[in-house]
């Protein structure tokens, strides 16, 4: 995307520079309209955009939560300025500001809020999704390998906004079982 954007930008700049070097543009006025407005103004962006749109939607569809056997489900509730996480596989168990997930398995995070709008964002695992009062939004995340991933709330929420961060700990299968049994903190 960056490369094609750079290419288009380069094209516009080259056309601008050439405008100052040339004596006279090509052809008469109707022909200029055909070149500049219909060709470069209409046909060119439409084809680029159509391709981009299809590409974006295809990726978006792939990122959507799908039903599956091995999906783990967790809950995330934002509150100024702490996240509380709950686990379907360990009812009653909650953690604060650290979300535990199994690595290598898709995880659905049910996101909501107890006060104002927040946004759940773990950049390396998925895009962001808002926590809206009175609603539950579900985000599909997946960590390929065990480890710790940094997360932030990405919707302005007042004076403690900059410190409103959390982390995600992805466990291997054994570690996840241990966590669910309550062995890890």
């Amino acid at each position, binding site marked *: 995307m960056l490369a094609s954007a750079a290419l288009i930008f380069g094209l516009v700049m080259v056309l601008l520079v050439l405008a100052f070097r*040339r004596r006279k543009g090509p052809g008469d006025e109707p022909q200029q309209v055909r070149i500049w407005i219909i060709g470069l103004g209409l046909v060119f*962006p439409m084809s680029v955009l159509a391709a981009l749109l299809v590409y974006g939607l295809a990726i978006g569809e792939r990122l959507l939560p799908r039903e599956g056997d091995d999906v783990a489900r967790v809950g995330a509730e934002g509150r100024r300025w702490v996240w509380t996480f709950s686990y379907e596989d360990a009812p009653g168990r909650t953690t604060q500001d650290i979300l535990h997930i199994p690595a290598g398995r898709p995880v659905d995070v049910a996101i909501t809020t107890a006060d104002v709008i927040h946004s759940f964002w773990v950049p390396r695992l998925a895009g962001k999704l808002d926590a809206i009062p009175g609603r539950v939004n579900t985000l599909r995340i997946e960590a390929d390998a065990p480890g710790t991933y940094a997360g932030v709330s990405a919707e302005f929420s007042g004076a403690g906004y900059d410190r409103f961060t959390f982390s995600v700990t992805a466990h291997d299968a054994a570690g996840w079982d241990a966590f669910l049994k309550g062995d890890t903190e």
Partner: protein
Amino acid sequence: MNALERHRKLTAIWASEPGWRGWFSTVNHTDLGRMFLVTAFFFFIIGGLLAMLIRAQLATPQSAFAGPEIYNQIFTMHGTIMMFLFAIPTFEGLAIYLLPKLLGTRDLAFPRLTAYGFWCYVFGGTMLLVAMVLGIAPDGGWFMYPPLSGPLYSPGINTDFWLIGITFVEISAIAAAVEITVSILKYRAPGMSLDKMPIFAWYALITALMILTGFPPLILGSILLEVERAFGLPFFQAELGGDSLLWQHLFWLFGHPEVYIIFLPAAGVISTVLPVMCRTTLLGYGWIVAAAVSLAFLSFGLWVHHMFTTGIPHMGLAFFSAASTLVAVPTGVQIFAWIGTIWKGRPELRLPMLHILGFFATFVIGGLTGVMVAVVPFDWQAHDTAFITAHLHYVLFGGFVFPIFAGVYYWLPHFTGRRRFFHLGELAFALVFIGFHVTFLAMHWVGLLGQRRRIPTYAPEDGWTAINLISSVGSFVLAIGIGMILIDVILHALTAARGRRNPWRAGTLEWAMITPPPAYNLASLPHVTSREPLTQEPDLAVRLARGEGYLATPRHGWRETLTVDVASGRPDMHVLYPTNTLLPIIMSAVTGVFFLSLLLKFYWTVPLAVAGVAYLAWRWVWVLGRKEDLDALPMGHGITLLNAAMTDHSPGWWGTVFLLTANATFFGSLLFGFAFLWTVAPGWPPPAWFVASPVELGFGILGAALGCFAIGHAIVVNRRNGSPLPGLVLTLAGALAVAVACAAMMARTPSPEAHAYGATLFVLGSYGLFHAVLGALMASFLIARVLQGFTSPMRRAEFTIVGLWVGYLSVVGTLVLLAGHLPGLAS
């Protein structure tokens, strides 16, 4: 009469009052346009200083420069000032100053409204500045999302300053938009058909129509949020049947068109200035107009792209993603038409042209990053990071500030009548251009590294320190550049030598006058036969000054002009303008008392202020008009025209049509909000439904029908030389019946504080009641006018205006009552 005598006579008629009083009583568009621009640039400086504070804060990690409470106020005010107090008023100021000159007439359609809008802007903006000085400025972000901005999480007065101050300023935007629309459609030189209009007028027309349909959702949202904060009616609280997403919809229904409301006037400046800089004509005039119109339409279909991360279903996102990318097409048409224009002509690298090239480089990047964030998965990552901040600054600075600087330097000789002497502008441009790109390229980068927007500080281990420092250094270079532009302009205005007329050899009519422009613009009005009258007749200015055009002879001390048929530009009415008056500033001060009373919760002064505004509005219209008919008057060149007061579709009628367009958008947004809450919000159904009453409903609808029929009857009878009084009295009765029905509905609404259902019904009822009382006032006004002899079968313009309002009342009154009663009757 020679040119000098004519100049003296016209100046005596059109000039504002001498001394300090003239500043407050002027209704002249040249004065007010200048005042608008100077005030807008004053706010630009304030907003820029706030930006410097932001960059100072972010230059180093863990900065102790400002705490989060202050920092939140700073960035909220930076966004608010730049959007509402700089960008929009700059457009208004430029359009107010230029349009009558470009269109070859003497003033805008409603001179007193221009002044009223200006003073509302000044007073509303001052309220926000005072809040800032006192350290109680809004701090919830310029988008003011509830519940963060709601009564629970922002209990202080900060948010109220925003909601009330901005609504006050919006009055000026709506006033200017009505004014600009009617002026462009009706107030043109004879012969100037729509296809001969200067391209800037097309852009201004489209922008004004967008303001009329884009701002009402925001005004509605602000009113609802303020009512929630002040009186506890829960529109945005999920647990009481409200929905915070309703605010986001209303806000972005305004907020996205707003981007194009800002860009289109700038595009108009480019389309005007660029061909002159290239010694040619604009390539593809018709295509550009079509592109601007489609941009306007598309921009209303994009608002959801600001909400990609709110959990809207993916197919919905797909639609808005498609619309968002599609908007790049008309933008592309304009960009390439401009580049084609440069190829067509012989470009000269003069100062306005430099800024236009700055526009190209910056805006194209902004557009390309815009296409990136229109791709949904990319936006899920980039949303609310510094990448977006950088993107929007590329769009707004590139798409507005550079073109406006080009325009400022282009029209500076027109504003002042002087020639540039100190060539500080070229160096300033280089600093602005370099400083801007350093600042915001760095910001793209740090955003992709994950730095969120609106954080007051960050840690050294985040690894953003060097980039932020580079960005901050760039921003100070940018600020120095803008400071130099300012000094350049001030030096120019104070010291430069007199310049010659039309220094750029442009073809449009604003250069067909002496500069600085005289109060009356044109000593006589030209007959326009081409898009560039000055290119066609280089001596046009002299000939107009000699009185060879229309309305060349001043008479009776009148400020006169003529209007034309919308499409063909054929002259159709003679217009007499009101003269200098303090009424606008007084009325906006009383309007200010109304808003201030709400802000400070001095509720006992609210009804006083409302009565005051009503009284002044009554006077406003009362002082116009005459007690005897005017004959058709000669306009010159053998044309005679009837005065506008003796027509059915007077300028006031046209203004009413467009004001009602804005009003209908407001009402439509309210109905949308009602339906949205009903169907989408969590927390429904409400604990209790409104108990429908066929009697109240029937009474109200009968009243609405009676009012509508009676005013129509009065219009017809008056024209046939009969007495309109019976019809008017019945109109009054009809309006009062609607008022009673709406008031009854409000009184019986189940506790508005307990659930959004009752709250929304209450607001719907108040909307109906307000319009019913307004209709009753107008009917009474007309009765008084008839009794005092201000109307006749000929002098009939006021009837059709009241007819429009009463007709509108009938429709909205019926809809309001149906919205309240019908669900109960149906179940």
